[in-house]
């Protein structure tokens, strides 16, 4: 059974004032609006919101309340050691039940991702996202990275090359994770696996709402 929280007391950062896009008063029908930092952030923001809700639910609600979760957990934990991923996944299955958006910590406050961590160059069709796992040995890093990558792949034009990185010095196996996330072959292989794809899809499903 679940014994304790990996990150029971996350560091909460002060929320940064969000940049608001100022719309032109008289919209120009033929003006081009290039893909920019804010847009990428918006694409990923929804995903992170979901991730955070799950994370926070994990931290603040008793896991043992739902019988189905207990059942699933007991099956999975007997198989694997990767408890956290499992909880993450099982909660994602139940994410639709969580109705309360008034959550103590929002995504930006936990600094998993910030607007500054996104570099984008529309002309050269290049985007780089740097994300920060909540703890150093966060075992979710690869899953988060994969989800980020898939989300971007599906939301940006095919001309884009994307680069997903763990923020320097924030993860124990930083180099390995980076290498894995940016290896086309391995990502393609991962996505060929229908079950892994299912998992990613399920992670991303709420972000398209």
């Amino acid at each position, binding site marked *: 059974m679940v014994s304790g929280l990996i990150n029971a007391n996350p560091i909460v950062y002060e929320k940064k004032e969000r940049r608001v896009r100022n719309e032109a008063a008289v919209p120009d*029908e033929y*003006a081009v609006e290039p893909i920019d930092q804010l847009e990428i952030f918006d694409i990923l923001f929804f995903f992170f919101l979901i991730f955070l809700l799950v994370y926070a639910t994990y931290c603040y609600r008793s896991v043992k309340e739902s019988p189905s979760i207990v059942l699933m957990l007991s099956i999975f934990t007997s198989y694997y050691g990767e408890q956290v991923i499992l909880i993450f996944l099982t909660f994602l299955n139940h994410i639709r039940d969580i109705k309360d958006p008034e959550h103590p910590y929002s995504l930006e406050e936990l600094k998993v991702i910030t607007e500054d961590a996104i570099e984008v160059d529309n002309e050269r069709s290049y985007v780089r996202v740097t994300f920060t796992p909540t703890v150093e040995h966060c075992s979710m890093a690869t899953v988060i990275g994969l989800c980020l990558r898939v989300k971007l792949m599906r*939301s940006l034009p*095919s001309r884009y090359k994307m680069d997903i990185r763990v923020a320097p010095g924030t993860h124990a196996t930083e180099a*390995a994770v980076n290498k894995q996330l940016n290896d086309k072959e391995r990502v393609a292989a*991962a996505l060929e696996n*229908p*079950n*892994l794809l299912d*998992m990613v899809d399920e992670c991303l499903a709420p972000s398209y709402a």
Partner: protein
Amino acid sequence: MAEPSQLSQYIESFVDSSRSPTQQAASLEAIASLLKNNQLTIETLVREMEGYLTTVDNIIRARGILLLGEVLVCLASKPLDDATIHSLIGFFTDRLADWRALRGALVGCLALMRRKSSGGMVCGSDAKAVAESYLQNLQVQSLGQYERKLSFELMECVLERYPNAVASLGDTLIYGICESVDGEKDPHCLMLTFHIIEVLSRLFPDPSDALAGFAHELFEILGCYFPIHFTHQKDEDMTIKRDDLARALMLAFSSTPLFEPYAIPLLLEKLSSSLPSAKLDSLRYLTDCTMKYGADRMAKHIEAIWSSLKEAIFTSLDSVLLFTPESLEGPDLPKNEIAAEALSLLEKLIVQNTKLFLDLIVGDEDISMIFNTLSDYKNYHEIPLERKQRLNAVGRILFTTAKASQVSCNRVFECFFSRLMDILGLSARNSSGQPFFEESILISKRCNHGALYLSIEILSACRDMIASSETILAATSHTEETWKYLLQSFSSALTMGFCSAFICSSEGTHDAATYIGVKGLLILATFPGGYSLISKTVFEKILVTFVSIINEEYSKRLPWKLALKALVEIGSFIERYHESEKEPSYMDIVVEKILSLAFVGDFGIPFPLRLEALSDIGTSGRSYMLKVVQGLEEAIYANLYEVYVCMANKLLLILKDNYHVHGSTNSAEIVTHLLKCYSDKVIPWIRCEKGFEEVLLQFAINIWNQFENSTHFNASQTNKKGVLDVMMKAMRLAVANCSEEKQNIIVQKSYNILSSSISFPLEEMLLQEGFQIAQEVDNISSRDEWVLSLFAAVTIAVHPQTHIPNTRSIVSLFMTTLLKGNVVAAQALGSMVNKLDLKSMRGQTSSDCTLEEAMDIILNLSLWIFDKNSSSSIQSKMISVHDTGLNDLSNGVGSCTSLQIHAILGLAWIGKGLLMRGHEKVNDITMIFLRCLQSSGRAGISHQETSISENNYKLDLHNSVMKTAADAFQILIGDCEQCLNREFHAIIRPLYKQRFFSAVMPVLQSLVMKLEPLSRSFLFRASAHVIIDTPLIVVLSDTKKIIPMLLDGLSALSNDVVDKDVLYGLLLVLSGILMDKNGQEAVSDSAHTVVNCLVDLTRYPHMMLVRETAMQCLIAISGLSHARIYPMRTQVLQAVIKALDDPKRAVRREAVRCRQAWSVFSECWHQLHQEASISNSFHSFSQVQ
């Protein structure tokens, strides 16, 4: 009498617990109805039931007694004799001791006790017996929830209805009640419990009574419920809310002063809790208890209350003050509920214990500390946040204190006001005296925002106190009041102080200073009671200050707005309190000055700002509005005159009247602004206020008079077109808001002017010499054109009942005018047709006509224009008339085409009028349009031998006619703001759009089948207009037939940039269909064509909204059955992937959603065939790692 066997059957079926509840209820009802109809007496019933009532079987006995009780509940309104009641109540009283059959006994007692006096009541001694038996036998807390509720209801009933009978029970009663309510937890029962205690305390009002000994015990039972903590889930017990319980408990708390030694300490303790709801409850309870316990009892606790209250106010108030124009008016109540409650409690306490409490406030250290540190900071924005909050709190406290009563106001003025004046460095002087110039400089250096803010609070409290006191005279007659003396002596100095705050701010530091200055002046100016408190000089000085701000500070938005708002407030204050002394000053200084803004041309204020000031001042009161309207109208007439007369006369004018230094171009601009202001601000105001119709009538008449008098009319410049437009708008609105009689006057007047300036064409001439029309119309002068347009505006706005003279000629006149392309004439004709009488009335002259006749005139004329075969000779004549000297054939055809276009536009408006009233002649007009649409360039052109290039040119022209015919459908069915709507009194038949839609769509569809592709596009255009303007719900009911037309329309319209708005409208209809469930089913069959069309539209380059909506439609389509849309998947995904690189962000966002929607269902498809556990996936991914 009922059959005994039947009765026993009923009884048996109720008592038998194996029967279903409905059977039991039915038999109960049957017995009750027997009793009500006197077919059965109670005595017989009881005798019949004897066995059930006395049996030793507990269950049967309980059911039996319950039956008797329930029967009595049903008989609540049936008169019963005293003996029966006595014996029944005796029985039930006895049965209270029988705990196994208790429910029936309780129900029976309750039913009897609740009887009204009209049908026989339980007597006092019996009631006492019930109470005794109750106290002796019932262990309420050991019963179930329902029985507990019943027994509490019984006790409540006894206490309420037989207070004298049970009061003699004394201690026993109180003790019994204490015992029975102790530890109750059910919310329903608690409501009753609290009420019982409340009634009980009322029963023993005297402190020396029996209750005194039990007060502590009773309060201990009550006290543990405070503050109410309600843990019930939301779905259960919806009938009782936390607030209900809290209120019931509050009434119980305050029911007797005997609770005071226990209640007040408890409440004060909870007030200091950190739970907001507990705080709020404590404050409410304290307020209630203060009122009920009385001054003497409260005096003991007053210090403790003050200190906790102060704490609550200090911590709960917002630290930020609002400096918006909206917050200028009225005492701004704190948003925070706790603060509001605390302040209202404070007011109650001061009223109750004025002397004691004032001593506390005056001697309070926190308050005096604030006063001592006031001079530390000069500017409001320098004050730290915490200090601001304290300052605000002190302000509110002083406000509440001063407002409470005359005495407290005196005290506040004595102690605090004079201190503030010292801080501000203001000296007392005679109210009429003028401060010296040097002193004002001194003040401006010393202006202290904190002190000014506090003085504002005190002053406004004082003002509100006077305003709320019964008669203002009574208040002002107290000459010896300290506040009055102080106020009078400081008012002029204070005015200087506030003005200086203003001046400080004008150097551009902070909003706060401006706000404080304006608010202070506003409060001083709105002291009621004429000039007795605030002298005339001070009042006028304030007004002058504001007006000068309006005149000079227009570049700064906030001060300007605040000053204007303040002036409006002062104006409406004078109006509301009938301050007749102040009115003349206001009129002279404010209204006149502001009015002059409408005339003076060379001030720097932008014209729209001037008009804003003008109309806002007008809204402050009726008399001002009259004045403003007058001034506005004068300005309008003067400027119009300028517009009318030619430039040659202008020099003379400049000499005569130095206002009009600007050219007539400028005055045209000014008059446009003025008229816009008149129709946008003044007329809506007049519409809301009653009794201003005369003003509108005069306005309209004056405009016409001016026309009559101006013979040298020269308004041919193009920029005057704008003037005519706003004039027509103002005229329309003015006429529309008049009553019928007034409209008749206006119509008559305008008709006279019209008939004197324009010669009417004769009807016969129209038909025979039709070709002259164009000629005549060309000859019309610009003055006549104005007269005609204004007359048209009047006709548009009249009521159906208003009489229009000489209808026949006017119809002809409008008809000829519209052929020249005058849309207003067409609209007027449409309105006339819409409102004309169907049948001729008595006493009509020959010049009037009915709708039928008018339509004959119109249709004959228009048929002539379109009937090419019969009129070729006339047409050629007409061409020759037009092109004297120019023999170019194509030109001739061109003018013929433009004539047709104008005729079609005119007919469209006429058709709209007919359609709205539901007249069948609209079909004729629609037929004309349809013929235009299908004539495909044959008539009139093909028989002429011309070269190919010329032929092409003509074809273009002809296309424009067809395009107009197609657009005519938009006019027919679309809504219009300028005419033919409710505001302009059109006759509107319900569901006319729906009727038209179902009549015309089949025709259009069958035409599409017949025609060749070129003219089809115009048919699609026409049907697009019809579909767009029909309510969606109607289109939905007919989706299957509409969809092909709709899709063809979409592809036809997507070829031309000009049509993008129509295209968007049509696409919205499609998306509406796709969002609807029934619509989706209907679309399902033609999904392939819909998808093709939408995919094309995702590339539509001219409008982002079209692409976005097309994307959303595709998302909606992905919800159709998968088997149906799976084949389209690749096609859609390719289109969507392209759209991911769309130049517009919104489209890209929709594209992402669309891609997800279409890829998800395809994945669902093959997921069905895959069986693998998650375990494998993890293994493989970690292997990859």
